[in-house]
Protein backbone atom coordinates (compact mmCIF):
# COMPACT_ATOMS: atom_id res chain seq x y z
CA UNK A 1 0.00 0.00 0.00
CA UNK A 2 1.28 3.41 -0.94
CA UNK A 3 2.28 5.82 1.79
CA UNK A 4 -0.25 8.32 0.49
CA UNK A 5 -3.56 6.89 -0.68
CA UNK A 6 -4.49 9.95 -2.70
CA UNK A 7 -2.18 12.26 -4.60
CA UNK A 8 -3.43 15.36 -6.40
CA UNK A 9 -0.83 16.81 -8.77
CA UNK A 10 -1.08 20.28 -10.31
CA UNK A 11 -4.82 20.01 -10.85
CA UNK A 12 -6.39 23.01 -12.57
CA UNK A 13 -9.97 23.65 -13.58
CA UNK A 14 -11.47 26.49 -15.61
CA UNK A 15 -15.13 27.42 -15.76
CA UNK A 16 -15.09 29.46 -18.95
CA UNK A 17 -12.54 32.18 -18.21
CA UNK A 18 -12.67 31.69 -14.46
CA UNK A 19 -9.80 29.74 -12.95
CA UNK A 20 -11.63 27.74 -10.28
CA UNK A 21 -8.72 25.52 -9.24
CA UNK A 22 -5.16 26.75 -9.74
CA UNK A 23 -2.47 24.02 -9.77
CA UNK A 24 -3.62 22.32 -6.60
CA UNK A 25 -1.20 19.68 -5.32
CA UNK A 26 -1.47 17.68 -2.12
CA UNK A 27 -1.36 14.20 -0.69
CA UNK A 28 -3.64 12.38 1.71
CA UNK A 29 -1.71 9.90 3.82
CA UNK A 30 -3.18 6.45 4.31
CA UNK A 31 -5.22 6.07 7.47
CA UNK A 32 -5.45 9.77 8.32
CA UNK A 33 -8.15 12.42 8.35
CA UNK A 34 -7.31 15.41 6.20
CA UNK A 35 -9.52 18.48 6.18
CA UNK A 36 -9.90 20.80 3.23
CA UNK A 37 -11.10 24.19 4.42
CA UNK A 38 -11.53 27.58 2.86
CA UNK A 39 -14.01 30.45 2.42
CA UNK A 40 -17.19 30.00 0.38
CA UNK A 41 -16.43 29.76 -3.31
CA UNK A 42 -12.81 28.72 -2.74
CA UNK A 43 -13.30 25.63 -4.92
CA UNK A 44 -13.58 22.90 -2.29
CA UNK A 45 -16.57 21.17 -3.85
CA UNK A 46 -15.04 21.57 -7.34
CA UNK A 47 -11.89 19.85 -6.14
CA UNK A 48 -14.01 17.09 -4.58
CA UNK A 49 -15.89 16.61 -7.83
CA UNK A 50 -12.59 16.28 -9.70
CA UNK A 51 -11.26 13.71 -7.24
CA UNK A 52 -14.47 11.67 -7.39
CA UNK A 53 -14.70 11.90 -11.19
CA UNK A 54 -17.79 14.08 -11.58
CA UNK A 55 -15.82 16.88 -13.25
CA UNK A 56 -12.94 16.50 -15.71
CA UNK A 57 -9.70 18.30 -14.96
CA UNK A 58 -8.22 20.76 -17.41
CA UNK A 59 -4.72 19.98 -16.23
CA UNK A 60 -2.86 17.81 -13.75
CA UNK A 61 -3.34 14.29 -12.43
CA UNK A 62 -5.21 12.43 -9.71
CA UNK A 63 -3.50 9.30 -8.37
CA UNK A 64 -5.23 6.82 -6.13
CA UNK A 65 -3.24 4.03 -4.51
CA UNK A 66 -0.49 4.57 -7.08
CA UNK A 67 -2.83 4.35 -10.10
CA UNK A 68 -3.64 7.29 -12.37
CA UNK A 69 -7.43 7.70 -12.18
CA UNK A 70 -7.61 11.18 -13.75
CA UNK A 71 -9.90 10.15 -16.60
CA UNK A 72 -11.88 7.38 -14.91
CA UNK A 73 -15.65 7.79 -14.58
CA UNK A 74 -17.14 7.98 -11.05
CA UNK A 75 -18.40 4.39 -10.96
CA UNK A 76 -14.90 3.01 -11.69
CA UNK A 77 -13.42 5.08 -8.89
CA UNK A 78 -16.15 3.83 -6.57
CA UNK A 79 -15.17 0.25 -7.44
CA UNK A 80 -11.58 1.06 -6.55
CA UNK A 81 -12.77 2.23 -3.15
CA UNK A 82 -13.36 5.96 -3.49
CA UNK A 83 -16.67 7.04 -1.93
CA UNK A 84 -18.09 10.54 -1.71
CA UNK A 85 -20.96 12.28 -0.02
CA UNK A 86 -22.69 15.27 -1.53
CA UNK A 87 -22.82 18.67 0.15
CA UNK A 88 -26.39 19.04 -1.07
CA UNK A 89 -27.77 15.67 -0.01
CA UNK A 90 -28.76 13.45 -2.91
CA UNK A 91 -30.99 10.72 -1.47
CA UNK A 92 -32.98 8.29 -3.58
CA UNK A 93 -36.02 10.11 -2.28
CA UNK A 94 -38.64 7.53 -3.24
CA UNK A 95 -36.83 4.69 -1.47
CA UNK A 96 -36.61 3.78 2.19
CA UNK A 97 -33.45 4.33 4.22
CA UNK A 98 -32.62 0.65 4.02
CA UNK A 99 -33.14 0.54 0.24
CA UNK A 100 -30.97 3.64 -0.17
CA UNK A 101 -28.09 2.04 1.66
CA UNK A 102 -28.59 -1.30 -0.09
CA UNK A 103 -27.83 0.37 -3.44
CA UNK A 104 -24.31 0.90 -2.10
CA UNK A 105 -24.12 -2.61 -0.63
CA UNK A 106 -25.00 -4.06 -4.03
CA UNK A 107 -21.55 -3.13 -5.29
CA UNK A 108 -20.22 -6.24 -3.58
CA UNK A 109 -23.46 -8.16 -3.04
CA UNK A 110 -25.30 -9.43 -6.06
CA UNK A 111 -28.24 -10.86 -4.14
CA UNK A 112 -30.98 -8.48 -3.07
CA UNK A 113 -31.44 -10.17 0.30
CA UNK A 114 -27.72 -9.99 1.11
CA UNK A 115 -27.55 -6.32 0.11
CA UNK A 116 -30.54 -5.44 2.31
CA UNK A 117 -29.00 -7.36 5.19
CA UNK A 118 -25.65 -5.59 4.76
CA UNK A 119 -27.54 -2.29 4.69
CA UNK A 120 -28.96 -3.04 8.15
CA UNK A 121 -25.46 -3.31 9.57
CA UNK A 122 -24.31 -0.05 7.99
CA UNK A 123 -27.44 1.76 9.20
CA UNK A 124 -26.78 0.63 12.75
CA UNK A 125 -23.16 1.80 12.58
CA UNK A 126 -24.20 5.39 11.78
CA UNK A 127 -27.21 5.48 14.10
CA UNK A 128 -29.98 5.09 11.55
CA UNK A 129 -31.17 1.77 12.96
CA UNK A 130 -34.53 3.19 14.04
CA UNK A 131 -35.36 4.70 10.65
CA UNK A 132 -34.64 1.71 8.42
CA UNK A 133 -38.11 1.61 6.87
CA UNK A 134 -38.65 5.38 6.75
CA UNK A 135 -38.83 6.93 3.28
CA UNK A 136 -35.60 8.88 2.67
CA UNK A 137 -37.65 11.96 1.82
CA UNK A 138 -39.00 12.16 5.39
CA UNK A 139 -35.60 12.36 7.13
CA UNK A 140 -34.46 15.46 9.01
CA UNK A 141 -31.33 17.35 7.90
CA UNK A 142 -29.25 15.41 10.43
CA UNK A 143 -30.87 12.17 9.28
CA UNK A 144 -30.17 12.82 5.60
CA UNK A 145 -26.53 13.67 6.37
CA UNK A 146 -26.25 10.35 8.14
CA UNK A 147 -27.86 8.64 5.19
CA UNK A 148 -25.32 10.24 2.83
CA UNK A 149 -22.58 8.86 5.02
CA UNK A 150 -24.21 5.44 5.33
CA UNK A 151 -24.61 5.04 1.59
CA UNK A 152 -20.97 5.94 1.01
CA UNK A 153 -19.90 3.48 3.70
CA UNK A 154 -21.98 0.73 2.14
CA UNK A 155 -19.57 0.45 -0.78
CA UNK A 156 -16.84 -0.40 1.77
CA UNK A 157 -14.54 2.42 0.67
CA UNK A 158 -10.88 2.92 1.50
CA UNK A 159 -10.97 6.61 0.73
CA UNK A 160 -13.96 8.58 1.95
CA UNK A 161 -14.60 12.08 0.63
CA UNK A 162 -16.94 13.90 3.01
CA UNK A 163 -18.32 17.13 1.59
CA UNK A 164 -19.62 19.23 4.50
CA UNK A 165 -21.22 16.29 6.20
CA UNK A 166 -21.70 18.43 9.34
CA UNK A 167 -23.14 21.52 7.65
CA UNK A 168 -26.66 22.37 8.75
CA UNK A 169 -26.42 20.35 11.95
CA UNK A 170 -26.93 21.92 15.39
CA UNK A 171 -24.11 21.76 17.97
CA UNK A 172 -25.48 18.70 19.73
CA UNK A 173 -25.92 16.87 16.44
CA UNK A 174 -22.31 17.75 15.56
CA UNK A 175 -21.16 16.34 18.90
CA UNK A 176 -23.01 13.11 18.04
CA UNK A 177 -21.49 12.94 14.57
CA UNK A 178 -17.82 13.60 15.38
CA UNK A 179 -17.20 10.22 17.05
CA UNK A 180 -18.98 8.47 14.16
CA UNK A 181 -16.46 10.00 11.75
CA UNK A 182 -13.49 9.31 14.01
CA UNK A 183 -14.56 5.68 14.33
CA UNK A 184 -14.16 5.28 10.56
CA UNK A 185 -10.38 5.71 10.61
CA UNK A 186 -10.24 3.07 13.31
CA UNK A 187 -11.92 0.81 10.77
CA UNK A 188 -9.06 1.48 8.33
CA UNK A 189 -10.54 4.26 6.22
CA UNK A 190 -8.73 7.32 4.96
CA UNK A 191 -10.78 10.49 5.00
CA UNK A 192 -10.66 13.76 3.11
CA UNK A 193 -13.31 16.16 4.37
CA UNK A 194 -14.40 19.70 3.66
CA UNK A 195 -15.90 21.48 6.59
CA UNK A 196 -16.80 24.90 7.96
CA UNK A 197 -17.22 23.79 11.55
CA UNK A 198 -13.81 24.59 13.09
CA UNK A 199 -14.65 22.73 16.30
CA UNK A 200 -15.01 19.51 14.31
CA UNK A 201 -11.86 20.10 12.28
CA UNK A 202 -9.78 20.63 15.40
CA UNK A 203 -11.28 17.51 16.93
CA UNK A 204 -10.81 15.31 13.89
CA UNK A 205 -8.22 16.34 11.35
CA UNK A 206 -4.51 15.62 11.69
CA UNK A 207 -3.75 17.58 8.57
CA UNK A 208 -5.48 20.68 7.25
CA UNK A 209 -5.30 22.18 3.77
CA UNK A 210 -6.55 25.70 3.17
CA UNK A 211 -7.98 26.52 -0.23
CA UNK A 212 -8.62 30.12 -1.25
CA UNK A 213 -9.51 31.35 -4.74
CA UNK A 214 -8.59 27.94 -6.14
CA UNK A 215 -5.09 27.84 -4.65
CA UNK A 216 -3.82 25.94 -1.64
CA UNK A 217 -2.43 28.73 0.51
CA UNK A 218 -1.54 26.88 3.70
CA UNK A 219 -1.15 23.40 5.10
CA UNK A 220 -0.36 21.95 8.52
CA UNK A 221 -2.16 21.11 11.73
CA UNK A 222 -5.36 22.95 12.66
CA UNK A 223 -3.47 25.20 15.10
CA UNK A 224 -0.77 26.01 12.55
CA UNK A 225 -3.14 27.05 9.79
CA UNK A 226 -5.35 29.02 12.18
CA UNK A 227 -2.31 31.08 13.12
CA UNK A 228 -1.20 31.58 9.51
CA UNK A 229 -1.66 35.24 8.48
CA UNK A 230 -2.49 34.21 4.90
CA UNK A 231 -5.37 32.08 6.16
CA UNK A 232 -6.75 34.83 8.37
CA UNK A 233 -6.64 37.22 5.42
CA UNK A 234 -8.35 34.74 3.14
CA UNK A 235 -11.31 34.62 5.50
CA UNK A 236 -11.40 38.21 6.77
CA UNK A 237 -9.84 40.27 3.99
CA UNK A 238 -6.50 41.94 3.18
CA UNK A 239 -4.65 43.39 6.13
CA UNK A 240 -6.88 41.66 8.67
CA UNK A 241 -4.01 39.63 10.14
CA UNK A 242 -1.90 42.75 10.71
CA UNK A 243 -4.81 44.64 12.31
CA UNK A 244 -5.62 41.72 14.61
CA UNK A 245 -1.99 41.38 15.73
CA UNK A 246 -1.79 45.14 16.25
CA UNK A 247 -5.08 45.09 18.19
CA UNK A 248 -4.03 42.28 20.49
CA UNK A 249 -0.64 43.88 21.25
CA UNK A 250 -2.45 47.09 22.30
CA UNK A 251 -4.73 45.20 24.67
Amino acid at each position, binding site marked *: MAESLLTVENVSKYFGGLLAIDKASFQVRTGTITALIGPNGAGKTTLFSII*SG*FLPTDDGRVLYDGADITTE*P*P*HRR*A*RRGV*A*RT*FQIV*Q*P*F*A*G*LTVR*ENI*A*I*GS*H*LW*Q*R*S*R*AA*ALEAANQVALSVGLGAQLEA*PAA*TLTVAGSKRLELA*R*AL*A*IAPRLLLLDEVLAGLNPSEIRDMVPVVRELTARGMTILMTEHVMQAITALAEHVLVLAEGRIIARGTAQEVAADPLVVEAYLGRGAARRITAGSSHA
Partner: protein
Amino acid sequence: MKTYWPIVLVVVLLAIVPFVTTSNVVLNFLITTLLIALVGQGWNLLGGYGGQYSFGHAAFFGTAAYTTAILQVQYGINAWLGLFAGIFAGSLVGAVIGVLCFRSGLRGSYFSLVTLAFAEVLRIFSSVTPITGAGVGTLIKLDLRPEAFQFQSRVPFYWIVLTLVALSLVTVRAAENSRFGAYLVAIRENEDAASALGINTFAVKLAAITLSAAITGAAGCFYAQYFLFIDAAIAYGPWISIDALLAPIVGGAGTLFASLLGALVIKALGEATKLLSGDAPGLDLVIYGLVLIAVVGLAPRGVAGVLTALFRRPFRAQPEGDNG
Protein backbone atom coordinates in the same frame (compact mmCIF):
# COMPACT_ATOMS: atom_id res chain seq x y z
CA MET B 1 -38.51 -10.49 -1.75
CA LYS B 2 -41.69 -9.81 -3.67
CA THR B 3 -43.67 -12.94 -4.53
CA TYR B 4 -45.00 -14.22 -7.82
CA TRP B 5 -48.41 -15.25 -6.45
CA PRO B 6 -50.29 -12.16 -7.64
CA ILE B 7 -49.09 -12.88 -11.19
CA VAL B 8 -50.25 -16.50 -11.00
CA LEU B 9 -53.64 -15.40 -9.69
CA VAL B 10 -54.22 -12.73 -12.32
CA VAL B 11 -53.04 -14.92 -15.19
CA VAL B 12 -55.17 -17.90 -14.10
CA LEU B 13 -58.24 -15.68 -13.78
CA LEU B 14 -57.67 -14.28 -17.26
CA ALA B 15 -56.89 -17.71 -18.70
CA ILE B 16 -60.31 -19.13 -17.79
CA VAL B 17 -62.23 -16.36 -19.58
CA PRO B 18 -62.56 -18.41 -22.83
CA PHE B 19 -64.26 -21.19 -20.81
CA VAL B 20 -66.85 -18.71 -19.61
CA THR B 21 -67.50 -16.94 -22.90
CA THR B 22 -66.31 -17.32 -26.47
CA SER B 23 -67.95 -14.11 -27.58
CA ASN B 24 -65.79 -12.52 -30.27
CA VAL B 25 -66.51 -9.06 -28.91
CA VAL B 26 -65.21 -9.96 -25.45
CA LEU B 27 -62.18 -11.84 -26.74
CA ASN B 28 -61.27 -9.14 -29.22
CA PHE B 29 -61.51 -6.52 -26.49
CA LEU B 30 -59.31 -8.59 -24.18
CA ILE B 31 -56.77 -9.42 -26.88
CA THR B 32 -56.27 -5.78 -27.84
CA THR B 33 -56.15 -4.85 -24.15
CA LEU B 34 -53.47 -7.45 -23.45
CA LEU B 35 -51.61 -6.32 -26.56
CA ILE B 36 -51.47 -2.76 -25.21
CA ALA B 37 -50.58 -4.12 -21.76
CA LEU B 38 -47.60 -5.88 -23.34
CA VAL B 39 -46.53 -2.80 -25.32
CA GLY B 40 -46.84 -0.74 -22.14
CA GLN B 41 -45.02 -3.22 -19.92
CA GLY B 42 -41.96 -2.70 -22.09
CA TRP B 43 -42.26 1.04 -21.54
CA ASN B 44 -42.93 0.53 -17.82
CA LEU B 45 -39.59 -1.20 -17.32
CA LEU B 46 -37.60 1.62 -18.90
CA GLY B 47 -39.83 4.58 -18.00
CA GLY B 48 -41.60 3.48 -14.84
CA TYR B 49 -38.66 1.79 -13.12
CA GLY B 50 -35.76 3.51 -14.88
CA GLY B 51 -37.21 7.02 -15.23
CA GLN B 52 -36.21 7.22 -18.92
CA TYR B 53 -39.36 8.49 -20.64
CA SER B 54 -39.39 7.22 -24.19
CA PHE B 55 -41.84 8.78 -26.65
CA GLY B 56 -40.74 6.42 -29.37
CA HIS B 57 -41.54 2.86 -28.38
CA ALA B 58 -43.13 2.53 -31.82
CA ALA B 59 -39.58 2.09 -33.11
CA PHE B 60 -39.35 -1.27 -31.30
CA PHE B 61 -42.96 -2.31 -31.95
CA GLY B 62 -42.77 -1.50 -35.64
CA THR B 63 -39.36 -3.03 -36.29
CA ALA B 64 -40.43 -6.30 -34.68
CA ALA B 65 -43.74 -6.32 -36.56
CA TYR B 66 -42.09 -5.62 -39.91
CA THR B 67 -39.35 -8.17 -39.28
CA THR B 68 -41.77 -11.00 -38.62
CA ALA B 69 -44.00 -9.96 -41.55
CA ILE B 70 -41.21 -9.44 -44.08
CA LEU B 71 -39.46 -12.68 -43.17
CA GLN B 72 -42.66 -14.59 -43.89
CA VAL B 73 -43.79 -12.73 -46.98
CA GLN B 74 -40.48 -12.17 -48.75
CA TYR B 75 -38.37 -15.05 -47.49
CA GLY B 76 -40.94 -17.71 -46.59
CA ILE B 77 -39.59 -18.10 -43.08
CA ASN B 78 -41.83 -19.74 -40.48
CA ALA B 79 -43.88 -17.31 -38.41
CA TRP B 80 -42.78 -18.78 -35.09
CA LEU B 81 -39.16 -18.24 -36.05
CA GLY B 82 -40.27 -14.81 -37.19
CA LEU B 83 -41.56 -14.13 -33.69
CA PHE B 84 -38.10 -14.65 -32.21
CA ALA B 85 -36.40 -12.82 -35.08
CA GLY B 86 -38.81 -9.92 -34.57
CA ILE B 87 -38.14 -9.72 -30.85
CA PHE B 88 -34.42 -9.84 -31.57
CA ALA B 89 -34.68 -7.07 -34.21
CA GLY B 90 -36.76 -4.92 -31.86
CA SER B 91 -34.27 -5.27 -29.04
CA LEU B 92 -31.41 -4.55 -31.44
CA VAL B 93 -33.05 -1.24 -32.37
CA GLY B 94 -33.47 -0.60 -28.65
CA ALA B 95 -29.78 -1.23 -28.06
CA VAL B 96 -28.72 1.03 -30.93
CA ILE B 97 -30.97 3.90 -29.81
CA GLY B 98 -29.79 3.30 -26.25
CA VAL B 99 -26.11 3.51 -27.16
CA LEU B 100 -26.63 6.69 -29.16
CA CYS B 101 -28.78 8.43 -26.54
CA PHE B 102 -27.08 7.35 -23.34
CA ARG B 103 -23.54 7.59 -24.69
CA SER B 104 -24.17 11.22 -25.47
CA GLY B 105 -25.66 11.72 -22.01
CA LEU B 106 -29.22 12.55 -23.07
CA ARG B 107 -31.53 12.81 -20.08
CA GLY B 108 -35.13 13.80 -19.41
CA SER B 109 -37.03 15.52 -22.18
CA TYR B 110 -34.03 15.39 -24.53
CA PHE B 111 -34.11 11.62 -24.40
CA SER B 112 -37.87 11.68 -25.00
CA LEU B 113 -37.54 13.92 -28.04
CA VAL B 114 -34.75 11.89 -29.62
CA THR B 115 -36.66 8.61 -29.19
CA LEU B 116 -39.68 10.27 -30.81
CA ALA B 117 -37.45 11.39 -33.68
CA PHE B 118 -36.11 7.87 -34.21
CA ALA B 119 -39.62 6.44 -34.45
CA GLU B 120 -40.65 9.16 -36.90
CA VAL B 121 -37.58 8.60 -39.07
CA LEU B 122 -38.37 4.88 -39.20
CA ARG B 123 -42.01 5.64 -40.05
CA ILE B 124 -41.06 7.86 -42.97
CA PHE B 125 -38.37 5.46 -44.12
CA SER B 126 -40.73 2.47 -44.07
CA SER B 127 -43.39 4.41 -45.97
CA VAL B 128 -41.11 4.77 -49.01
CA THR B 129 -38.75 1.81 -49.02
CA PRO B 130 -39.80 -1.19 -51.20
CA ILE B 131 -39.03 -3.97 -48.71
CA THR B 132 -41.78 -2.84 -46.31
CA GLY B 133 -44.27 -2.51 -49.17
CA ALA B 134 -43.87 1.27 -48.95
CA GLY B 135 -47.23 3.04 -48.86
CA VAL B 136 -49.18 -0.14 -49.57
CA GLY B 137 -47.98 -1.96 -46.47
CA THR B 138 -47.31 -5.64 -45.97
CA LEU B 139 -50.06 -8.23 -46.06
CA ILE B 140 -49.31 -11.60 -44.49
CA LYS B 141 -50.86 -14.41 -46.55
CA LEU B 142 -53.82 -16.12 -44.88
CA ASP B 143 -52.68 -19.59 -43.78
CA LEU B 144 -54.87 -20.77 -40.93
CA ARG B 145 -52.59 -23.40 -39.44
CA PRO B 146 -51.08 -23.38 -35.94
CA GLU B 147 -47.67 -24.06 -37.55
CA ALA B 148 -48.01 -20.73 -39.31
CA PHE B 149 -48.98 -18.90 -36.09
CA GLN B 150 -52.51 -18.41 -37.41
CA PHE B 151 -55.71 -19.77 -35.94
CA GLN B 152 -59.35 -20.17 -36.95
CA SER B 153 -60.57 -19.06 -33.55
CA ARG B 154 -59.51 -16.13 -31.39
CA VAL B 155 -59.03 -18.33 -28.33
CA PRO B 156 -55.49 -19.54 -29.14
CA PHE B 157 -54.48 -15.97 -29.97
CA TYR B 158 -55.88 -14.91 -26.62
CA TRP B 159 -53.87 -17.50 -24.75
CA ILE B 160 -50.70 -16.65 -26.67
CA VAL B 161 -50.91 -12.93 -25.91
CA LEU B 162 -51.78 -13.80 -22.31
CA THR B 163 -48.67 -15.99 -22.15
CA LEU B 164 -46.55 -13.14 -23.46
CA VAL B 165 -48.05 -10.75 -20.89
CA ALA B 166 -47.43 -13.35 -18.15
CA LEU B 167 -43.79 -13.64 -19.24
CA SER B 168 -43.42 -9.87 -19.19
CA LEU B 169 -44.90 -9.71 -15.68
CA VAL B 170 -42.52 -12.41 -14.47
CA THR B 171 -39.59 -10.61 -16.11
CA VAL B 172 -40.43 -7.35 -14.38
CA ARG B 173 -40.99 -9.03 -11.02
CA ALA B 174 -37.63 -10.80 -11.35
CA ALA B 175 -36.06 -7.41 -12.10
CA GLU B 176 -37.71 -5.94 -8.97
CA ASN B 177 -36.03 -8.66 -6.90
CA SER B 178 -32.61 -8.24 -8.49
CA ARG B 179 -29.63 -5.94 -8.31
CA PHE B 180 -30.39 -4.80 -11.85
CA GLY B 181 -33.84 -3.58 -10.79
CA ALA B 182 -32.50 -1.84 -7.69
CA TYR B 183 -29.88 -0.06 -9.82
CA LEU B 184 -32.52 0.94 -12.35
CA VAL B 185 -34.69 2.53 -9.65
CA ALA B 186 -31.62 4.23 -8.17
CA ILE B 187 -30.90 5.81 -11.56
CA ARG B 188 -34.51 7.02 -11.77
CA GLU B 189 -34.28 8.57 -8.31
CA ASN B 190 -30.85 10.21 -8.67
CA GLU B 191 -28.40 9.41 -11.41
CA ASP B 192 -25.40 11.23 -9.89
CA ALA B 193 -25.79 9.54 -6.54
CA ALA B 194 -26.11 6.23 -8.37
CA SER B 195 -22.81 6.63 -10.20
CA ALA B 196 -21.10 7.75 -6.97
CA LEU B 197 -22.08 4.37 -5.54
CA GLY B 198 -20.32 2.47 -8.30
CA ILE B 199 -23.24 1.99 -10.69
CA ASN B 200 -22.30 1.96 -14.36
CA THR B 201 -25.38 3.97 -15.26
CA PHE B 202 -24.75 3.66 -19.00
CA ALA B 203 -24.68 -0.15 -18.88
CA VAL B 204 -27.79 -0.37 -16.69
CA LYS B 205 -29.80 1.99 -18.87
CA LEU B 206 -28.64 0.18 -22.00
CA ALA B 207 -29.72 -3.19 -20.58
CA ALA B 208 -33.07 -1.65 -19.60
CA ILE B 209 -33.85 -0.17 -23.01
CA THR B 210 -32.85 -3.42 -24.73
CA LEU B 211 -35.10 -5.53 -22.51
CA SER B 212 -37.85 -2.94 -22.79
CA ALA B 213 -37.60 -3.03 -26.58
CA ALA B 214 -37.76 -6.84 -26.55
CA ILE B 215 -41.03 -6.81 -24.59
CA THR B 216 -42.61 -4.15 -26.79
CA GLY B 217 -41.22 -5.96 -29.82
CA ALA B 218 -43.02 -9.16 -28.81
CA ALA B 219 -46.24 -7.15 -28.94
CA GLY B 220 -45.35 -5.96 -32.43
CA CYS B 221 -44.88 -9.54 -33.67
CA PHE B 222 -48.18 -10.55 -32.13
CA TYR B 223 -49.93 -7.62 -33.77
CA ALA B 224 -48.65 -8.64 -37.20
CA GLN B 225 -49.89 -12.23 -36.76
CA TYR B 226 -53.25 -11.24 -35.33
CA PHE B 227 -54.20 -8.60 -37.88
CA LEU B 228 -52.07 -10.00 -40.75
CA PHE B 229 -51.45 -6.50 -42.05
CA ILE B 230 -49.14 -3.64 -41.16
CA ASP B 231 -48.13 -0.42 -42.80
CA ALA B 232 -45.91 2.48 -41.80
CA ALA B 233 -48.64 4.33 -39.87
CA ILE B 234 -49.56 1.26 -37.82
CA ALA B 235 -46.04 0.00 -37.18
CA TYR B 236 -44.27 3.25 -36.40
CA GLY B 237 -47.18 5.65 -35.87
CA PRO B 238 -47.34 7.85 -32.76
CA TRP B 239 -50.48 5.99 -31.61
CA ILE B 240 -48.45 3.03 -30.41
CA SER B 241 -45.82 5.20 -28.68
CA ILE B 242 -48.64 7.03 -26.90
CA ASP B 243 -50.47 3.86 -25.84
CA ALA B 244 -47.12 2.47 -24.67
CA LEU B 245 -46.69 5.27 -22.14
CA LEU B 246 -50.35 6.02 -21.43
CA ALA B 247 -51.18 2.52 -20.18
CA PRO B 248 -48.45 2.30 -17.50
CA ILE B 249 -48.83 5.96 -16.47
CA VAL B 250 -52.59 5.59 -15.98
CA GLY B 251 -51.97 2.30 -14.20
CA GLY B 252 -49.22 3.70 -11.96
CA ALA B 253 -45.77 3.72 -13.58
CA GLY B 254 -43.08 1.75 -11.82
CA THR B 255 -45.42 -0.88 -10.38
CA LEU B 256 -45.77 -4.45 -11.60
CA PHE B 257 -49.37 -4.37 -12.85
CA ALA B 258 -49.29 -0.74 -14.02
CA SER B 259 -49.52 -1.53 -17.69
CA LEU B 260 -52.20 -4.21 -17.38
CA LEU B 261 -54.39 -2.02 -15.14
CA GLY B 262 -53.86 1.01 -17.33
CA ALA B 263 -54.59 -0.88 -20.55
CA LEU B 264 -57.87 -2.16 -19.05
CA VAL B 265 -58.87 1.33 -17.98
CA ILE B 266 -58.06 3.12 -21.22
CA LYS B 267 -59.53 0.39 -23.42
CA ALA B 268 -62.72 0.20 -21.35
CA LEU B 269 -62.89 3.97 -21.39
CA GLY B 270 -62.47 4.02 -25.15
CA GLU B 271 -65.32 1.54 -25.64
CA ALA B 272 -67.58 3.28 -23.14
CA THR B 273 -67.15 6.71 -24.68
CA LYS B 274 -67.89 5.24 -28.12
CA LEU B 275 -71.21 3.89 -26.77
CA LEU B 276 -72.09 7.10 -24.93
CA SER B 277 -71.30 9.56 -27.66
CA GLY B 278 -73.51 7.81 -30.18
CA ASP B 279 -73.19 9.24 -33.69
CA ALA B 280 -71.48 12.56 -32.96
CA PRO B 281 -68.14 12.27 -34.78
CA GLY B 282 -65.07 12.76 -32.57
CA LEU B 283 -67.10 13.26 -29.41
CA ASP B 284 -65.86 9.96 -28.00
CA LEU B 285 -62.27 11.16 -28.35
CA VAL B 286 -63.09 14.42 -26.58
CA ILE B 287 -64.66 12.57 -23.64
CA TYR B 288 -61.78 10.09 -23.66
CA GLY B 289 -59.27 12.93 -23.45
CA LEU B 290 -61.14 14.71 -20.67
CA VAL B 291 -61.41 11.58 -18.56
CA LEU B 292 -57.72 10.87 -19.04
CA ILE B 293 -56.82 14.38 -17.89
CA ALA B 294 -59.02 13.83 -14.83
CA VAL B 295 -57.43 10.45 -14.06
CA VAL B 296 -53.87 11.69 -14.38
CA GLY B 297 -54.67 14.89 -12.48
CA LEU B 298 -56.54 13.25 -9.60
CA ALA B 299 -54.39 10.15 -9.29
CA PRO B 300 -50.81 11.04 -10.14
CA ARG B 301 -49.66 7.62 -8.98
CA GLY B 302 -52.18 5.91 -11.19
CA VAL B 303 -54.76 3.23 -10.55
CA ALA B 304 -52.22 1.21 -8.57
CA GLY B 305 -51.66 4.20 -6.27
CA VAL B 306 -55.40 4.62 -5.68
CA LEU B 307 -55.84 0.91 -4.95
CA THR B 308 -52.91 0.88 -2.52
CA ALA B 309 -54.34 3.89 -0.70
CA LEU B 310 -57.81 2.31 -0.53
CA PHE B 311 -56.54 -0.98 0.84
CA ARG B 312 -54.21 0.56 3.38
CA ARG B 313 -56.45 3.24 4.79
CA PRO B 314 -58.65 1.10 7.07
CA PHE B 315 -55.62 -0.40 8.81
CA ARG B 316 -53.88 2.84 9.69
CA ALA B 317 -54.75 5.10 12.56
CA GLN B 318 -53.31 8.18 10.89
CA PRO B 319 -53.34 8.98 7.20
CA GLU B 320 -49.87 9.02 5.69
CA GLY B 321 -48.58 11.98 3.79
CA ASP B 322 -48.10 9.97 0.63
CA ASN B 323 -51.76 8.94 0.29
CA GLY B 324 -53.99 10.50 -2.31
